[in-house]
């Protein structure tokens, strides 16, 4: 706790197990679906 009282130089965000995978899947699906929509509508 004493360390936190000092000037914190950097506030990191720790990964929670499992979520990097969830993020990866969601993002991939999102990008693919968005490309599909744009492809179909701009065709």
């Amino acid at each position, binding site marked *: *706790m004493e360390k*936190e*009282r000092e*000037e*914190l*130089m*950097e*506030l*990191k*965000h*720790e*990964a*929670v197990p499992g*979520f*990097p995978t*969830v*993020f*990866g899947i*969601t*993002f991939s699906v999102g990008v693919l679906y968005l490309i599909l929509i744009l492809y179909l509508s701009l065709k």
Partner: protein
Amino acid sequence: MSFSVPPAALFIAGAFLVVFLRGMPRSFLLLVLPVLSLLNLLSISDGIHWIIHFMDYKLIFGRVDRLSLAFGYIFTMISFIANLYALRVDNNPEHTAALLYTGSSLGVVFAGDFLTLLIFWEIMSIGAAYFIWARRTTASYAAGMRYLLVHIFGGFCLLCGILMHVHNTGSIEFGYLGLGGLASLLIFIGFGINCAWPGLHTWLTDAYPEATITGTVFLSAFTTKCAVYALARSFPGTEILIWIGAIMTLFPIFFAVIENDLRRVLSYSLINQVGFMVVGIGIGTHLALNGATAHAIADIIFKALLFMAMGAVLHQTGKINATEVGGLHRTMPITCTFCMVGAASISAFPLFSAFATKSLIIEAVAAGHMPIIWFILIFASAGVFHHAGIKIPFFTFFARDSGLRPKEPPLNMMAAMGIAAFLCVFIGVCPGFLYSILPYPVDYQPYTPCHIVAQLQLLFFSALAFTLLILAGIYPPEMRAINLDADWFLRKGANVLVWFITKPVSAVVAKINDAVTDALPKFLLWFGKNPPAALKIGADIIVYNFTDRAEDRQRLEKEKIIYPRDLLYPWSIGAAVSSVLIFLLIYLLVYFLYYKTGAA
């Protein structure tokens, strides 16, 4: 009409009066002035009032129409809120600056001619600079100076543009200009500097976070919105504004994501929101101009609310960096709630203000069939929720526990935030009231199922992105660091300029100075002692340089040593007379060629 006064006059009179007051009378004055001003505005009829004849021109202090009234109402309203927030500031010059700044903003809005506009425009810069200096830190002093320099430059552009415009047209009327010619371009840029256009924006993100806690609230409301008003007045439908505005909505959000100072995050999002208004002005249809005005009104309130909430945190803890605060919802739940109302409003959540105002602009973009602009604005809408809507409240009131346990801010600050929060919700729930004061009739219904669901999807999936990025450990860490911006060119460029002036330029100047004050008189003195001999020496130097013979050199040395006394080479009378004749001939030629032909 019979009892009304020029809108700027009340506040400017108050600015001088407040100097002499302390305690209750001062508080009374600060709160009553905006109320009086609002009553004054309500009693003015449309049209042109308060004309003063100055030389050949008419100065107009009251051009009253729906556009100027809409800005007048909101300026008066926000001055009440900000004065209430600043009620406990025991520094009279700051109140004077506030009233002067508010008064001159109203002066700009109701100015009917460019001269009046310019005068109030300059007073605004001075009032604003005081808010920055009043923080009394080294950083704020420097930032205030930079602020003033930029705005003096902007005012200068405006002045040049106006002078050229008056010279070209003979009219000083402040009305529609449109972009064409150098005069209008200079005025355009003058407005653009106050409007924080990309590249010209750094005075804002540089200075606002350095201003006093209460000063930033005033600053966020007036300068940029006056510029929006001026653009809406003089340049509606100027196509380049659409692109300028779109870039304004886009680039600040990237900086906001990696910025640590939370008031600087809000400054970036201020540019982003003004970008939406600039797009609206660029489109220039009635729907778009309504949207720009409505969004300016909504933005003044929710941006003030957010700055007030961050100011409350700074006031209670002395800290404002994301790395230093956190977990404050435990002891500041009410401030936290107000902050989240502001966050929801800026993000355009249904039932909050921007939902009813920003959509007018986006609707106008869609109606004008501008898909790229539309994609940029939706991207920026998602982005603004990301950094202003989530980042601000999350890192201040939640995230990690910083160990800080500040109390809620004083009652007047809470009341000011409460009123602003109420207005945010009121505009969101009953947009009809706001729509009724816009410049043109509004035929738009924001609350359709399609619009609500689309907006909710956009926002919730932005939030989902934030949540997943944090949980996956990808979200960039908050860091104590500064991020360079376009002002790097000015601030480092200034150093280069200083080096350039002190080193090469001053060396050259010193040389010239030496030559003119020292070497030249000495030479003339030397030459004057015996001109023919001196000329002979000069000729011999040339001869020696060509021939390089020893005997020439010896002769030259001898001539130099005996120089002034040597009169062995007097000019013959013939040579002297011929040289005089030659000079006379040259004189005659010049006389005939130049004067005679010039006269004809």
